[in-house]
């Protein structure tokens, strides 16, 4: 599959007001592939997802199946096939679980209208609890159940690429494991690529094909998930001690990243490297 | 002038000096009728300033300041008419009574915010004229209450005409009150108000006594609005319920937004907007339905200001001037 990637991000920048958060980020997601987007808190994972779903304005190029996404707004991107399970799950508290799900499948492309019922059945199988509580108002669900609902709702819109933002946030380990098990099965049965932003690196790497590590708004490491399997490699990628070997390095150094108080503790070597 | 840059703090606030000089010269320049109109402008501006304290600085909504203005007006006139008090005592009485009313109005604000508060204040504004009409024996009912001799009459030694003296009294009291409000919002009280405005939750966690603060700011705002009402009524020498309807409260709210809810100079623009615009419109739109056209134009101006100058006319003009100033310096140095 060396053809044009399904989702291509090249030289992406994003800012909130005067603070630039993403610097020259480049990555791509191929058809049916799951990419884990790793990085410490505040590295820019959520902003990157919001940039792809056009919630945040950006610079640089962003294409889906070759089509330029930057021309579209959030609604346009969603209709073009970008599914986004936001941080905090975006539950419609007042609507019932079934209504939440139905809202998702209403956003699906016309051609797939016919499969709506069977898809709903599949989501019920994937998350049986959603079937039991389908009459209940979604606001009454637990954190984990709302996460499953958010995932199911997004899938029912049959997106081309599904962005999932920190699903494990605030969940008990057992629920997180159950969730990641479901995530693993998505690619096959839902023919959608997944870009999974997650802090829990270990679980993500087990389900992902490739991994991209963000640090301070730039891509620190981009490689196959297996390469980061052992502990040392992972810690190095997070702390950026090993030289930055990614496409960004080839094109000269990124602008000096602003001191971002939220990042992992800096060692001297980092400061010297990042400023290059 | 909500947050003056350090540069202008050291240099004299030229605009305010110019304004004071101009305001003092006016009584010797213009006719009694114009002085009455300007007295109305200053007193309504003070009411708008009191609303700014509440909405702009403390983030509380009030669509009922017309009722507080009316309560102050009736108190002032009745203290002079029935109680035979001199005007300073009447003004003080109006201020104190409305402080109490404000504290009362503040109580629901402790439990309700935003829309709920808007509804309660709308209820107060709609009820005030009806209740005043009902207590006819005291308030003169629908006909209202008129004072025989104008209360703000000039004492002999001043050699001023009544209208001039009345104007100067209104100007002095309004000036002092607005200056007081302005400094209040600068000090520690202002900072805790800011905390209350941004998020009362955060304010509580930082030790800001929000309950007491909310009641205080409501009482203060209502007291000043009542003072403004008393000044207006004493200048006009009469009060009737029809002046303080719900429509008047909404007009005050509009004037506060037009002038800018955080701008003191904006309150003056708001006062002028309320007093002059309807009159200006109906004067040069003759014909039978001129009054209606005036109201359409009034609404249109209000909407335009809301769209193009959401932070108020004064800030909009000041930003324009700043850009003008900046461009000129850039040309010079380029």
């Amino acid at each position: 599959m060396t053809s044009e990637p399904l989702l291509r991000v090249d030289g992406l920048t994003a800012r909130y007001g005067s603070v630039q958060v993403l610097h020259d980020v480049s990555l791509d997601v191929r058809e049916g592939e799951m990419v884990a987007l790793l990085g410490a808190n505040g590295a820019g994972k959520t902003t990157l997802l919001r940039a792809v779903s056009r919630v945040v304005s950006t610079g640089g190029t962003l294409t889906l199946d070759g089509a330029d996404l930057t021309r579209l707004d959030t609604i346009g991107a969603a209709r073009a096939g970008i599914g986004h399970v936001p941080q905090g799950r975006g539950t419609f508290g007042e609507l019932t679980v079934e209504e939440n799900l139905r809202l998702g499948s209403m956003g699906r492309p016309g051609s797939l209208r016919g499969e709506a019922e069977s898809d709903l059945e599949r989501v019920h199988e994937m998350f049986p609890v959603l079937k039991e509580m389908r009459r209940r108002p979604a606001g009454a669900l637990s954190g984990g159940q709302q996460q499953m609902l958010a995932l199911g709702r997004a899938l029912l819109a049959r997106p081309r690429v599904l962005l999932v933002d920190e699903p494990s946030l605030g969940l008990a380990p057992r629920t997180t494991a159950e969730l990641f098990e479901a995530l693993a099965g998505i690619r096959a049965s839902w023919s959608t690529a997944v870009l999974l932003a997650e802090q829990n690196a270990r679980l993500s790497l087990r389900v992902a094909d490739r991994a991209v590590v963000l640090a301070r708004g730039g891509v620190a490491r981009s490689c196959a998930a297996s390469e980061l399997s052992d502990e040392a490699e992972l810690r190095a990628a997070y702390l950026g001690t090993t030289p930055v070997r990614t496409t960004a390095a080839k094109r000269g150094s990124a602008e000096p990243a602003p001191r971002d108080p939220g990042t992992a503790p800096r060692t001297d070597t980092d400061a010297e490297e990042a400023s290059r | 002038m909500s947050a003056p840059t350090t540069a202008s703090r050291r240099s004299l606030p030229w605009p305010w000096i110019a304004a004071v000089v101009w305001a003092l010269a006016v009584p010797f320049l213009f006719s009694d009728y114009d002085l009455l109109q300007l007295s109305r402008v200053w007193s309504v501006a003070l009411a708008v300033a009191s609303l700014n304290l509440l909405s702009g600085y403390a983030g509380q909504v009030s669509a009922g300041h017309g009722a507080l203005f009316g309560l102050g007006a009736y108190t002032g006139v009745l203290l002079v008419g029935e109680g035979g008090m001199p005007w300073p005592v009447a003004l003080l009485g109006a201020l104190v009574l409305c402080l109490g009313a404000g504290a009362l109005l503040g109580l629901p604000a402790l439990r309700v915010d935003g829309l709920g508060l808007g509804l309660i204040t709308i209820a107060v504004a709609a009820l005030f004229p009806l209740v005043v009409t009902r207590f006819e024996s005291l308030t003169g009912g629908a006909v209202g209450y008129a004072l025989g001799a104008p209360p703000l009459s000039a004492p002999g030694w001043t050699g001023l005409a009544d209208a001039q003296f009345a104007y100067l009294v209104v100007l002095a009291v309004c000036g002092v009150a607005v200056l007081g409000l302005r400094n209040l919002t600068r000090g520690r009280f202002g900072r805790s108000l800011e905390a209350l405005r941004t998020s009362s939750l955060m304010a509580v966690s930082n030790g800001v006594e929000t309950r007491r603060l909310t009641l205080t700011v409501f009482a203060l705002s209502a007291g000043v609005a009542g003072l403004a009402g008393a000044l207006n009524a004493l200048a006009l020498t009469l009060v009737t319920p029809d002046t303080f309807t719900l429509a008047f409260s909404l007009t005050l709210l509009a004037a506060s937004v037009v002038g800018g809810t955080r701008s003191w100079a904006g309150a003056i623009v708001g006062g002028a907007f309320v007093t002059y615009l309807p009159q200006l419109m109906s004067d040069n739109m003759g014909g039978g339905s001129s009054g209606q056209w005036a109201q359409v134009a009034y609404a249109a101006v209000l909407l335009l200001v809301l769209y193009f100058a959401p932070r108020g006319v004064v800030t909009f003009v000041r930003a324009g001037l700043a850009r003008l100033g900046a461009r000129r310096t850039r040309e010079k140095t380029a």
Partner: protein
Amino acid sequence: MRVTERVRRPLLRATALLSALTLAVSGCTLRWNAQEGTGRGDIVIGGSFALSGPLAVTGVVGAGAQAYFSRVNAEGGVRGRKIRFQLLDDAYDTSRLTANMRRLAEQDGATLVMAFGGPAISIRPYLASRKVPMVALAGQSPFSDVRAFPYARAWWPDIAQEGRIAGSFLKSEFPGAKAGLLGLNNDLTPSQAAGLESAGLTLAKTIKVAPNVVDLGPQVNELRAAGVDVLFLSVGGAAQSAVLRLMAQIGYHPKVMLYSAQSEYTTTLKPAGPAAEGVYTTQWAKDPADPRWADDPMVRQFTADMDEYGHSVDRDKLLALNGYGAAAAVVEALREAPDLTAEGFLESWDSLRGAPNPALLPDLSLNGGPDGRLIRTYQVQRYDGRTWQRENTP
């Protein structure tokens, strides 16, 4: 260069503020030329009415007055001088009325001013201090106290007088009937109640409602339950005809006496339709829309003037003819006045005897008196479904 920059910007703001303030007062007149007297120029007559706002329906009196003054000017004015009629809007808000009156008295040098209804009561002290006569188009009883306010006159007869005549008629026509009054919570109702009771009519039920409450179902039920079978109705505007229709529909048929100013053809009788048949009122002025006056020469002149001077939309309104008649009375007084000063006008107004007026019913005329009014007699009328018919009053 840097120092001037720091001072220059606030100066820029100061000049902007000064120019804005000067512009704002450009409409003002300078102090020394505000007192020009009323020399040989026009006779300035001021009028402040509700041309906008909730009670704009009453502002039509201004249109009628303007039409009459325009015709008088077309025919050479009064004693060779034109009348300049300054018509201002106060939206029935006394603070604007006060401002208008001060402008008329102090700046426009008005010889006399006209105003409408309740608010005019509270402006009397100011006008007395300026010695400017006022003709109020109002029937409230306080206006009859000319001794307290020598510069205020009222064009309408005293409502209490109307109440007395209506009360004595109802008492004699329907002896032993239970009477009720349904009115607004404004200054009219106390005068009406006083008048009715002074004629010996005991009011079993008096209900006051707020002006913009139009659905008066609950109040009508209350009257019906109290067994009221003679009702004095004065709720104004749309509510008047709505109440008549409602009573007819629910089969409640008390004898109804309408307040004279709210028995208008266009706003009460026509909208009420058949439900208005058999209602009474007391009248002193003609209603231009009443077919009875279709070929009355004075009413025809009125409608011609209204069309001529741009008020044709109000040509069939009672209040327009009323304002027209008030203007005629003012001109009549000015013509007979010894001189055109305030005192001259008032003296002439009080000494009018048997003067005709286009608004009055045929056999009535203007007669001055100690109560400052020109009309004191009402005629009870009954509506037969098409037009008012005069009843023989006791």
